[in-house]
């Protein structure tokens, strides 16, 4: 038996430690731990509710738009406003552009150094050695596209900034719609950048994924995890949010079902929070308790009807029936590429649907008392925001983010989280160079800054309507 500690797991957002026990070259147990927390919900208490859109973006600089969208959805819900069509579409254009940025940076800049050999100069030195098996030609191609991808992902952000003002931390998504209007020159500029990005996705990203999958085809056999999926759905296609590009749903124990938000709970048995942290999001009162016996992470354990679920591109593609070939580390990578291609096509259609001159924001009035829920998908999975307003100020705010689902610790029943399950059984031929472990971790595209922000002030809780 050998203990392998990877602290920090790099090339992801935030601070993650992974500890596995390996016996006869295979992982027998695994713990994933978030090692930094800031306490966002407490920071939000007492503020003007409209500010939540800007403040929550700062939870994560990689997927800020998803937080802005979830916050705006929660406020639209609480304020009871109907967002005009242009507002809905511009929100989709801002969010979709960042999905592309995120998927491209993940594949090329965060994942590839696990599989590809880079020149031995900083920041590529001191990496694990051993199982790099690409031929010279493919290796060179992928190194070249690592740098090309930096340029393409920058252009994704330039595309988003046309409507969003700036990236990261766009400013145009607001409660009630968007501040930015559908201007013809912005639409044209967006379309031009999109054409270049779409070509890269089709010609390079898709082919590079194929090359990687062929060379490392054994990764289709490992890193399975719970094989339960959950998606809140993303990119509304009509003004009532009934139809979405990627629909909401769950897939539990091999069966598809509608998503019922009332079944989502959080468990803090092995997290550094006190007992009051268990329960339904929006109702829990989370307080830090570092060093709690049995706890090993700042990440809580969300469950759906008590079940562990994986979230992210593979979950979305599976639930929408677009990709059901298998569940593994490599399937996650393939599903992400497929999703990027689908988004490039949808963005072009949405540009056509914009009506220059038509309204993009609805007037909002802050109610004295209200509550709202905003459910959306971040590039790396299901994201929910819960807000309660009292005296026109935020009373409570809670976010349950994708990486709490994927990198959750064991729950009270002792069931490990999705990543922890995916690591169990994984072959680790060389304990000093645990490449298979970091590859499997990266397949989930973790974002720890999101996952470890959670804390709510210990104040009386009003009745919360789900």
């Amino acid at each position, binding site marked *: 038996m050998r203990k392998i500690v990877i602290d920090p797991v790099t090339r992801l957002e935030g601070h993650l430690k992974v500890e596995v026990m390996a016996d006869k070259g295979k992982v027998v147990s695994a713990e994933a731990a978030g090692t930094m927390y800031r306490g966002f919900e407490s920071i939000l208490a007492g503020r003007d509710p409209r500010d939540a859109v800007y403040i929550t973006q700062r939870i994560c600089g990689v997927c800020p738009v998803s937080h802005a969208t979830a916050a705006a959805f929660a406020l639209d819900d609480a304020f009871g406003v109907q967002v005009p069509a242009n507002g809905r579409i511009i929100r989709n254009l801002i969010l979709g552009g960042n999905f592309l940025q995120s998927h491209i940076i993940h594949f090329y800049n965060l994942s590839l150094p696990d599989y590809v050999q880079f020149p031995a100069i900083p920041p590529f030195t*001191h990496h694990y050695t051993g199982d790099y098996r690409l031929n010279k030609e493919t290796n060179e191609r992928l190194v070249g596209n690592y740098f090309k991808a930096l340029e393409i992902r920058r252009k994704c952000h330039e595309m988003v900034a046309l409507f969003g003002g700036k990236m990261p931390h766009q400013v145009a998504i607001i409660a009630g719609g968007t501040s930015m209007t559908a201007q013809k020159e912005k639409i044209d500029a967006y379309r031009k950048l999109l054409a270049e990005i779409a070509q890269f996705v089709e010609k390079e990203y898709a082919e590079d994924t194929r090359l990687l999958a062929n060379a490392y085809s054994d990764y289709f056999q490992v890193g399975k995890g719970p094989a339960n999926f959950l998606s809140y759905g993303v990119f509304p296609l009509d003004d009532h949010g009934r139809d979405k590009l990627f629909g909401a749903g769950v897939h539990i124990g091999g069966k598809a079902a509608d998503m019922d938000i009332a079944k989502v709970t959080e468990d803090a048995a092995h997290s550094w929070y006190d007992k009051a942290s268990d329960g339904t999001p929006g109702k829990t009162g989370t307080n830090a308790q570092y*060093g709690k016996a049995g706890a090993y992470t700042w990440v809580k354990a969300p469950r759906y009807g008590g079940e562990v679920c994986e979230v992210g591109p593979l979950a979305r593609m599976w639930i929408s029936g677009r990709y059901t070939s298998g569940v593994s580390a490599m399937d996650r990578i393939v599903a992400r590429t497929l999703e990027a291609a689908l988004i490039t096509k949808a963005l072009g259609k949405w540009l056509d649907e914009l009506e220059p001159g038509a309204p993009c924001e609805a007037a909002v009035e802050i109610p004295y008392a209200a509550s709202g829920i905003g459910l959306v998908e971040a590039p790396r999975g299901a994201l929910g925001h819960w807000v309660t307003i009292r005296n026109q100020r935020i009373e409570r705010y809670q976010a349950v983010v994708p990486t709490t689902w994927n990198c959750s610790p064991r729950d009270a029943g002792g069931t490990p989280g999705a990543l922890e399950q995916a690591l169990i059984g994984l072959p680790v031929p060389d304990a000093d160079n645990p490449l298979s472990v970091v590859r499997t971790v990266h397949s989930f595209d973790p974002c720890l800054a999101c996952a470890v922000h959670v804390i709510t002030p210990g104040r009386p809780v009003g009745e919360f309507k789900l």
Partner: protein
Amino acid sequence: MRNLSRREFLRLCGATGAALGLTHAIKPEILQAFAGPAGGQPPIVWLQGGSCSGCSVSLLNGVQPEIGKVLTEVISLQFHQTLMAAAGEPAMEILPAVKKQYAGQYYLVVEGSVSTGEKAMYSTLGERDGKPVSFVEWVKTMAAGAKAVIAVGTCATYGGIPAAGSNPAGSKAVSDVISGVPLINVPGCPIHPDRVLGTLVHAIKYGMPELDHLKRPTVFFGKCVHDLCERRQMFDEGKFATRLSEPGCLYKLGCKGPMAYNDCPTRKYNNNTSWCVGANAPCIACVEPGFPDHTSPFFERMPEYGPAGTPSPQPRQGKIIGGDK
């Protein structure tokens, strides 16, 4: 290749617009500016603490020279959690090695606030003898051997979002935990890549840039957003928007431009694409020490400080939002 004088360099830093952007104009210069110990490239250690990584992502949005070239050919990026190939122990061994090999020669960049909550264990990085090491310990250790420290982003410079409200994680600015080493603050939420690269070039080639009372390089943070704003004339003429999506000055809808000191209106973001007011949204003064508590509510008109009844166009923010730091 011409060698720029410091005066010429500063003029380029101040110039904005696609054709005149800092990194564009100094491309040949930037490539020869760095004459350091690591194969001719100055070693940089970039640490991330209580951050969202937005500043790192924003750095990658730098143009001309392409950021890929900057990262591999211009600087020697020894440590950066989001980009480095190394992980775990081999990664953490880099820090003491750099401190020893390049003592007094490397630059330390810190992104994110420094958490001091619950004996500083709210934020840890790596392990020593099986025990987690606090982020604040790494900042102090690495700052001690650095030539200069550059705090990037409003979290690292002034505490920012994590230090807002009740400051649940005991988050502090870098300046609160280090001393005895030159420090430059480059705030912004997130940082602008030009401002970080320009500051780095200046520090390496010409030494410490001129700083204001908040340790910000005056070349980037010397002017008021309100004065540079493309809608300033609308303010002077009293043409105020009543809805964000309408034309007009956003002052009455919450714009904090009058209390923000930087060059956003001319430099813009994302390769000169746009900025906050360009997308009909108010400036939230994200470069100021008072961000976010004293620059919010974001969509409510800021208090007036001028003669009775008149908005005050340019109060020095240090006097009105929490004093000097």
